[in-house]
């Protein structure tokens, strides 16, 4: 993903209200190229589409909107696995994490999600956050 697109994603994300974020998750991933569509894998990875997929196909439930992780799902970002690593895991997992077949989430979809995860900036140091100091 190029720098311009990355900046665009951040701007778009900052403009979305919390409510809009949730509502965005209700919409189809992208008009004319639903998750799993063969056409999706033919395009260059799109962080914008990856974010929509991330919110829409279930990743967000356990990993959070920024891939920060929860007790139900590990942290994915910053420094995410490459798309190939993510695909290899989600095709074969038999843990609490549900597997995603290529029929449902193509390699192109996974590449888009990986592109989105790469846009997530590093976290602040907890020492810079008053509520996390001195614990």
């Amino acid at each position, binding site marked *: 993903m190029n720098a311009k697109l990355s900046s665009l994603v951040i701007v778009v994300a900052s403009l979305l*209200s*919390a*409510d809009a*974020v*949730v*509502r965005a*998750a*209700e919409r*189809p*991933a992208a008009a004319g190229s*639903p*998750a799993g569509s063969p056409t999706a894998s033919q395009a260059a990875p799109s962080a914008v589409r990856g974010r929509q997929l991330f919110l*829409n*196909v*279930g990743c*967000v*439930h*356990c990993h*959070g*909107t*920024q891939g*920060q*992780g*929860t*007790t*139900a799902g590990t*942290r994915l970002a910053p420094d995410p696995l490459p798309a190939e690593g993510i695909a290899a895991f989600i095709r074969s997992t*038999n*843990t*609490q994490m*549900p*597997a*995603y*077949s290529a*029929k*449902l*989430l193509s390699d192109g979809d996974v590449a888009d999600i990986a592109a989105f995860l790469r846009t997530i900036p590093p*976290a*602040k*140091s*907890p020492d810079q*956050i*008053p*509520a*996390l100091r*001195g*614990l």
Partner: protein
Amino acid sequence: MGGWQGGQVTKRSNTTGRIDRRHFFSAVAVAGATAAIPAVAGASAADAGVTAAATAPPPRGATPPSAAQLAADVGAPPAPASATGAIAAGASCGSDFMVDVIKSLGIDYIFSNPGSSFLGLHESIVNYGGNKAPEFITCMHEESAVAMANGYYKAAGKPAAALCHSTVGLQHAAMALYNAWCDRVPVVTILGNTLDLTKRMGGNDWRHSAQDPVAMVRDFVKWDDQPTTLQGFAESFVHGYKIACTPPMEPVAIVADSELQEVEVPDRAALQVPKLSTPVPPQGDANAVREAARWLVAAERPVIIVDRLARTPEGMRRLVELAEALAAPVIDLASRQNMPTLHPLYQNAQSRALIAQADVILGLEVTDFWGQVNQVNRNDKSSRSRLKPGTKTITIDVNDLYMKSNYQDFQRYAPVDLAISGDGEATLPALIETVRAQIGAERRAAFAPRLERFRKLHAEAREAARQSAAFGWDASPVSTARLCMELWQAIKAEDWALVSVGASEGFVSNWPHRLWNFDRHYRYLGVGAGGGVGYGLPAAVGAALANRSLGRFSVNIQCDGDFMYANGALWTAAHHRIPLLTVMHNNRGYGQETMLLQGLSNRRNRGIDTARIGTEINDPPINYAKLAEGMGVWSAGPITDPSQLAAALKRAVEVVKKGQPALVDVVTQTR
């Protein structure tokens, strides 16, 4: 990073190692119940209504109080219904006597929604009894009433009563009773009913009467009775209270027949309130305890798993003593707050590795021990043991001392090596004494490096949690880490208690137990143990009512789905001036079900983008701050910008410190 400061729970008493059973039950049993409780002084005889005693034959399948019974019960022929309903001078009525019985047990509150089947008792509580000890707490739903009694017990350490209206009221109450049953919480349920068909005035009087009203909840109450005389009511009520408070503690149900409530009692002195015999909890067999101690002392990698152990400060203090004596890590499943979270032997973060490497595991009041030592996979419904070959397992609990078969809350059978039936808290003194007696110099030398290793692991886990909390810190919706840690900053200077997090602390990724300082047994009360939604808010209100008189600051992290089941409890908090800070975890959906539906869709290879259908609460989004405001509760939000959270919480804390409830609505991440 903070560390274990050796607070209250680490202090050793002068009776260290000795068995102190005399004081064990002081928190739940009421001392001083008298053999004959006098009538309430100053109660006006003309204040209460009365009806004639029953004279009709009994209905099919049941035995209502007959005229002869009533006459024998009150020491004189039952009075006919007067034209005015007034009680004769110097006389009393059945429900006044019932209030005397309730007062004798020190029950401070009766949680209830009004109903005609207990009109007499309601009137006696507020007039004859002066609406004090017990005070009538107005609830919006019987489910809330029982949930409040549940939360109240866990904070106060003594039971409250829930008063329910016959058939429909008990139907409403049923789920909350099941939660209390699964949580081992004594709730004294009182149920109105009109057994004598000739006293039912048609319509709802019939629909709201039953031959055996407790039948529908009998699978999850420990004991029940439908007494037909006032003397029988007194004995059954005191007996039921005792049964409820004997481990395993559970709810009980006593029917207060409407005719018994209303019968005139010309000679109150003829009725006696039995003395409460305070039960001593059962202690584990001495030989079995000695064997358990031998295994634990010899173990190289012992682990203690604890769930519903600490009812009192003694429970936490004794657990710390045992863990320190053995240098054994503790995994606290936290249906009660058993282990201080800043103690170096609090090792929840290492639970999987510890169980996998253990050579001896001790389970203390763990309901699902099998679930702790086995790993399940929901995808293929398989399971495998987490234990290495040869690991010895010990349990000390009261789980099998009282059990029913229909509802399956008893969990899967655990084939442990040494199962000791006995109350965990009551058995700990003997276990500690025996452990200490068996530790020689060699074992003591081996324990020292073990403790240091756990001290290091504990510090590393706290730091890892602190680092993790920073991820997504500025996200909108607000991260659950930020929700919990801004809340911690707002309350940590108070004598706080996290009275509810709904059905699971996992819904907020366990941030409180990962980073707050739970250093007292009352800091946390566990969750709705039966998993019945609608527990969180009313249980928090009940607990906050108890904490009000104990000077504790009550905090409730409230899931939105749970809130919508029983939000009338907010009005109860406002009406009764119950100080409670509620912080909404408003993720606009049923998060757990969304995840489960997602997983199933994936396994079925279809519809991975439809998991929000039927699980989302977002179209339209609910404004919880406005709902709270409409019920007279101070509120703020909905907050979507995390930078606004700290200020809102600060204002809310000030409101609560002035004695009022407050609610802060925070739009959050899923978990």
